[in-house]
């Protein structure tokens, strides 16, 4: 297992290198002079020169690239222009918030998505199947911020059951966290639940038609044993690969969910950074988030290899 992990980490290096190169290059794609664009219209020439110097834009491109990677290896992603703190520091403060919210949404997604997908497959072409697939279709079609807004109107404003937004850290008040995070997590999870339910259903239908399932049924095993031990165990293999995609979509979705519910996570941080032209923050935030996602995908791959003995990354 350690072998697989190490091999996968190595094979991810080119992607990480390319991702960091793209984030480095971003700032140079700003039309015109990046420094004056960042400084804004009312900036004095000195201010522009300062920004140019701070961001190293006064050096040659190879030097900038060298500096970028040397700093990167030291975990230094520069300073946020807006907050003055180091990008790494701010990110490490905000990241746990997003991770906690995403984990909550992931739990909802896995529970509801797998369950409804399995039930739909077992009751194929009945009203249960049709209802859960209709629900899944709606799930993948309702924009999560629209759902969030509707939930705020219904549960916070009309019924007064849950707060409209705000955030309580999980570590200081777990119950408070649960109360403030439930609406964001549910609105975030719906799309992915629909996605997972659809994939689970079609995978289960495929597996249920296999000979080994028929054999298991024929030898008189009880239905639940066949479904869970024979069918689901095999269906989990393709489903696992989807989890990596789901986590990426969760992070995408959390950008707008955090803004909507005023949750101080990575998504809100990046949106504010973009609105304020805080490019070091945008670059650093993008790089760290994407790097973590690559690691998550490696984790998924390793689980995949563990689930399916046929998969071995010897060639990689």
């Amino acid at each position, binding site marked *: 297992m350690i072998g697989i992990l190490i091999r996968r980490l190595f094979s991810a290096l080119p992607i990480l290198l390319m991702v960091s190169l793209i984030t480095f290059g971003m700032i140079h794609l700003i039309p015109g002079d990046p420094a004056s664009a960042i400084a804004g219209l009312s900036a004095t020439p000195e201010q522009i020169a300062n920004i140019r110097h701070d961001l190293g834009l006064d050096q040659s491109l190879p030097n900038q690239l060298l500096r970028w990677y040397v700093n990167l290896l030291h975990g230094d992603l520069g300073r946020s222009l807006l907050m003055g703190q180091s990008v790494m520091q701010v990110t490490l403060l905000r990241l746990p918030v997003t991770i906690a919210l995403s984990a909550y949404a992931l739990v909802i997604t896995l529970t509801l998505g797998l369950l409804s997908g399995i039930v739909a497959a077992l009751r194929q072409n009945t009203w249960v199947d049709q209802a859960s697939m209709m629900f899944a*279709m709606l799930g993948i079609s309702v*924009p999560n911020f629209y759902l969030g807004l509707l939930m705020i109107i219904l549960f916070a404003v009309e019924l007064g059951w849950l707060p409209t937004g705000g955030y309580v850290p999980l570590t200081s008040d777990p119950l408070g966290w649960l109360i403030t995070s439930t609406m964001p997590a549910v609105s975030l999870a719906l799309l992915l639940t629909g996605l997972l339910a659809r994939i689970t259903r079609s995978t289960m239908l495929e597996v249920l038609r296999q000979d080994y399932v028929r054999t298991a049924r024929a030898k008189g095993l009880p239905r639940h044993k066949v479904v869970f031990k024979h069918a689901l165990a095999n269906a989990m293999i393709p489903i696992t690969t989807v989890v990596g995609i789901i986590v990426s979509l969760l992070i995408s979705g959390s950008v707008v969910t955090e803004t909507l519910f005023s949750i101080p996570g990575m998504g809100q941080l990046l949106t504010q950074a973009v609105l304020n032209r805080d490019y070091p923050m945008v670059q650093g935030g993008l790089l760290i988030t994407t790097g973590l996602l690559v690691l998550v995908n490696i984790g998924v791959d390793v689980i995949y290899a563990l689930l399916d003995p046929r998969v071995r990354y010897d060639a990689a």
Partner: protein
Amino acid sequence: MPPDTTLTLTIEALDDDVPLRRHNPAWLALVRLAHHRLFVTGLVLFGIVALVAVLAPWIAPVDPNKLAMRAKFLPPSAEHLFGTDNFGRSLWSRVVWGARLSMFIGAAVVAINAVFGTLIGAAAGYFRRLDNVVMRVNDALMAFPAVLLAIGVTSVLGPSVNDVIIALGVVYTPRTARIVRASVIVLREMDYVQAARAAGAGDFRILRKHILPNAMAPLIVQLSFLFAYAVLTEATLSFLGVGAVPPTPTWGNIMAEGRQYMIDAPWIITIPGAALMITVLGLNLLGDGLRDVLDPRLRVQQ
């Protein structure tokens, strides 16, 4: 009538070179799509939005940015079909013109993907030496979460409709290219392609005549879902305030502005949100139908 005449006629009919409609694969696909209930539902939903978008200048002649401070926050009525917003602007006009922008942006992103996704995917899939380099960049772009990359690119380019289109193109073209590449890699090794090569056909002729036509089905399916993602992501960007600048009437902008008034004037949010949902739902149903009919490999068993 002697019996042999009928026989001759039958043989003649069979030998006839005029292609029979029911043997034409495109016609067959159309017939099957017409019988696919969900596809037809999706087509109707999407068709309504597309029609509204095309007819915007005639059905919503009031300028979507025209202020009327004395007619603020009017609820939907016969006079103001969708009510008015915090500046007294006609929400009907704003939502209708928003449909036009959404459709324009969606169509533009689909066009970018159809052209560049096909070119990049075909090049990477067919020419082995290009594959490694192209796919490395492709995979790196796909590693970014879609919305994050989109806001990153708009932060660099700027907040206009064109910049949003470019950003969405950058985010989604790698995904399209990957799908085209996957088909091309399989088709490249097919016997009929080898035969064409043996017969002396050049690379570009093989790609154009033999490979790409057969790689179209998954591409078309992908593009219909992509239209939905593009519309959705554009709305998300506007809602966050990093898309087309207000007061441009995009659905996301309308909803972002309506957010502070959602308790007293919920229609400012619910109506554009519903329009967005109908569009995305229509496109998703459309995509499902196309996949069922065109791309049986991926078919969800009925």
